[in-house]
């Protein structure tokens, strides 16, 4: 349990993806079965253990210590799990306590019933040290939140066994914690586990962005074009009565979209974009946001913001794997299938006819719907290849919006950037034309080169007017200040920001050392971009 606790603590504070991977692989390589599989399940959110209510925890701890001292402690720390892990009275000397295995702790929790739950939980806390108590409480209160995605966990498994992450993703949904056959295969002790599960995930095919010369040598006649919808990439799969809705990384997102799941009465695997509204009236991005990042959804919300799927590829029909077929053939099969699907929940992503790249470029720049972020190009003869092969598929995004803003605050970065002021809050002018003031409109921490980072860092240090911990307030008025050209993908209304706008995907596109801050943009410029 101690090693698991240490892993959690390290993962939370390690900012870099590669650092997290190193920690995960090291843990998996040096921890025995079944503990490592259970740890993995805990990280991926697949561990089934009874949950514990915060109120019960509070009761347990205040039965054991002075409530006033507990109150001081909780006020100071601010996190209930952490406070309890720290103040829990030590019942025996450290040397007498042994370090139980994670599997032992999980088995104990799974045996606990409703009536003896609190006693069993308290006994466990008595046996653990501080970091392990913290891990236990976080596990059972369902809030690990340590910045490890399912994708990262699968990548760690792949690294452990020298495999491709796609292979793990394809297997994943047929496996159960503690994944013994998977580890046996990764360590070369057994054959690859057969994927026995119905409606398995098929790793998705991704597109490269169009770069400068990509289209020069490409023949427009070889490609089909579609609008690139800014929804969520999903894979809807039905097999033998089992229905699954996967995200592009193979996470099952069905619980958040029961309305769509209900309409999935087919034996097929369809690739497409999940959107909100209806096929005849696609909703806005902020409508879509209402349905994002939810574990479940109320009937009211599902009625107000119904989910539907815009289908663009067909990977499987019945027992037939279509992935080796060329795109044109898969597309024809998809068109044939569409007739049997619920037209309120599924529609076909239309092809965009074009004669030349110039022609397509013109369409790309003026898409017919605000949720379109560009066009997709797919070679007629391309099979469906997992990953991001170069050539068969391209995404050609609409050019971003840009605005000239003034640097207002800079915050020190993490990891490699911990000695640099690398996270920037910028603002535009608002209010009275004669005496305007800057209102913050966003924050960006990439888009610049290492050399530019050094320049901005120096500028920040030389022009600091106030410091608040890791944040510096930078001189920014009509006469002096650094103008940043900010690129962004779109704008939403926001009630959380004073400016009333929130940028999507802002990044720094140019440093405008040449531009006087008084000539930076005004808030009205941004407001004009807001959806009606």
């Amino acid at each position, binding site marked *: 349990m101690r090693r698991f606790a240490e892993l959690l603590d390290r993962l939370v*504070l390690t900012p870099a993806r590669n650092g997290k991977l190193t920690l995960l692989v090291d843990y998996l390589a040096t921890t025995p079965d079944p503990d490592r599989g259970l740890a993995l399940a805990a990280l991926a959110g697949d561990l089934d253990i009874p949950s514990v209510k915060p109120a019960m925890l509070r009761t347990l701890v205040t039965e054991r210590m002075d409530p006033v001292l507990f109150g001081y402690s909780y006020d100071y720390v601010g996190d209930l799990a952490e406070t309890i892990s*720290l103040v829990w009275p030590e019942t025996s000397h450290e040397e007498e306590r042994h370090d139980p295995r994670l599997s032992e702790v999980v088995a104990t929790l799974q045996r606990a019933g409703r009536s003896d739950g609190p006693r069993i939980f308290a006994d466990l806390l008595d046996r653990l040290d501080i970091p392990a108590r913290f891990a236990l409480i976080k596990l059972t209160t369902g809030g690990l939140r340590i910045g490890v995605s399912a994708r990262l966990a699968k990548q760690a498994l792949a690294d452990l066994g020298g495999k491709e992450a796609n292979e793990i993703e394809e297997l994943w949904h047929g496996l159960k914690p503690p994944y013994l056959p998977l580890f046996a295969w990764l360590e070369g002790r057994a054959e690859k586990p057969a994927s026995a599960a119905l409606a398995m995930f098929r790793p998705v095919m991704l597109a490269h962005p169009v770069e400068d010369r990509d289209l020069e040598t490409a023949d427009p006649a070889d490609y089909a074009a579609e609008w690139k919808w800014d929804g969520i990439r999903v894979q809807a799969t039905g097999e033998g009565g089992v229905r699954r809705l996967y995200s592009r990384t193979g996470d099952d997102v069905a619980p958040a979209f029961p309305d769509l799941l209900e309409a999935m009465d087919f034996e097929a695997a369809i690739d497409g974009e999940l959107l909100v509204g209806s096929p005849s009236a696609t909703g806005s991005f902020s409508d879509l946001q209402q349905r994002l990042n939810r574990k479940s959804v109320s009937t009211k919300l599902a009625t107000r913001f119904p989910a539907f799927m815009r289908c663009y590829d067909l990977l499987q029909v019945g027992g037939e794997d279509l992935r080796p077929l060329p795109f044109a053939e898969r597309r024809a099969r998809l068109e044939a299938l569409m007739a049997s699907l619920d037209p309120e929940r599924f529609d076909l992503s239309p092809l965009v006819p074009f004669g030349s790249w110039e022609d397509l470029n013109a369409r790309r720049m003026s898409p017919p719907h605000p949720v379109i972020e560009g066009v997709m190009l797919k070679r007629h003869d391309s099979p469906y290849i997992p990953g991001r092969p170069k050539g068969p598929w391209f995404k050609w995004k609409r050019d971003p919006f840009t605005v000239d803003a003034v640097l207002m605050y800079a915050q020190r970065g993490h990891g490699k950037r911990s000695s640099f002021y690398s996270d920037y809050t910028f603002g535009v002018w608002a209010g009275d034309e004669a005496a305007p003031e800057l209102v913050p409109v966003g924050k960006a921490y990439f888009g610049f080169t290492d050399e530019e980072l050094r320049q901005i860092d120096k500028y920040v240090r030389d022009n600091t007017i106030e410091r608040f911990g890791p944040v510096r307030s930078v001189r920014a008025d009509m006469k002096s200040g650094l103008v940043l050209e900010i690129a962004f993908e779109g704008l939403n209304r926001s009630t959380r920001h004073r400016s009333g706008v929130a940028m999507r995907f802002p990044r720094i596109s140019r440093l405008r050392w040449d531009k006087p801050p008084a000539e930076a943009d005004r808030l009205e410029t941004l407001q004009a971009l807001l959806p009606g």
Partner: protein
Amino acid sequence: MRARDLLHTRPEGLYCPPGDFFIDPVKPVERALITHGHADHARPGNGKVLATAETLDIMGIRYGEGFAGSMQAATLAEPMQIGDARVTFHPAGHVLGSAQIAVEKDGMRIVASGDYKRRADLTCTAFKPIACDVFITEATFGLPVFRHPDPVDEIARLLDSVRQFPERAHLVGAYALGKAQRVIRLLRDAGYGETIYIHGALAKLCDYYVAQGVDLGPLAPATIETGTKDQFAGAIVVGTPSAFADRWARRFPDPVACFASGWMRIRQRARQRGVELPLILSDHSDWDELTATITETGASEVWVTHGREEALVRWCALNGITAQPLHLIGYEDEGD
């Protein structure tokens, strides 16, 4: 005699009228008794200074030889008379030279403990509980949440991370006096024999510890002249906490930011500072040690200073000991 006639607070610090001296004054005074060399306790500009020989040396290193009008070295456990008060220095186990100061008159004994810890530390003399009527305790970590782990385990965590990330430099932030030397000494005790690189601000104090017989093993300045960036890959670099937020830190390859401090017990503290590997390593007593020490001194009254006074006062009340916060200003709440 009443306790407050023997010691009470004044704006300059803790004052003893019978002996006409201050303990750790925050403003210059005629006669000062100093518990240890940390900057918030030992300040320059006093008339006469009485402290252990090591503390006087450390003040000389930090402030230059003329840091006070005159200096006198106190020998541990040897009582001396100052005016009408009897004064004895006893070891505090905080940093090299640190002492508690016992002040007595007419059968009343007050112990001003300064900062103290109870854990084993090979870089200084161990704390000794002194029986007294009034015990003045620090409260830097005076909350039940502060429970320091075994320093050996914390150093093992650091060495584990060095093994996991051999291509990165581990930068350990540690205060220049005491903590830095203790971290280095603990690494040596764990069998780490490699050269440890140190920030320039630590050099003189490390040299002094070595001269006092604390073996720190091979040390080298962490300057760019000692090698290329890659030479620091896999290395441990010790520096003051502020140095790592500075441009100085850029010479190291993809550094792992570590910080050796009792504050690292609280995750949010580590997060705010951008610390990747918090090492919970303190030169102060944790909650269990503070309360155990109060009991051991047998004091019937406790005065609580710098830190989280209210929790210790509450604990004393629950345990039938008279206690009050001593509102001394000028001591760093953050010190560790």
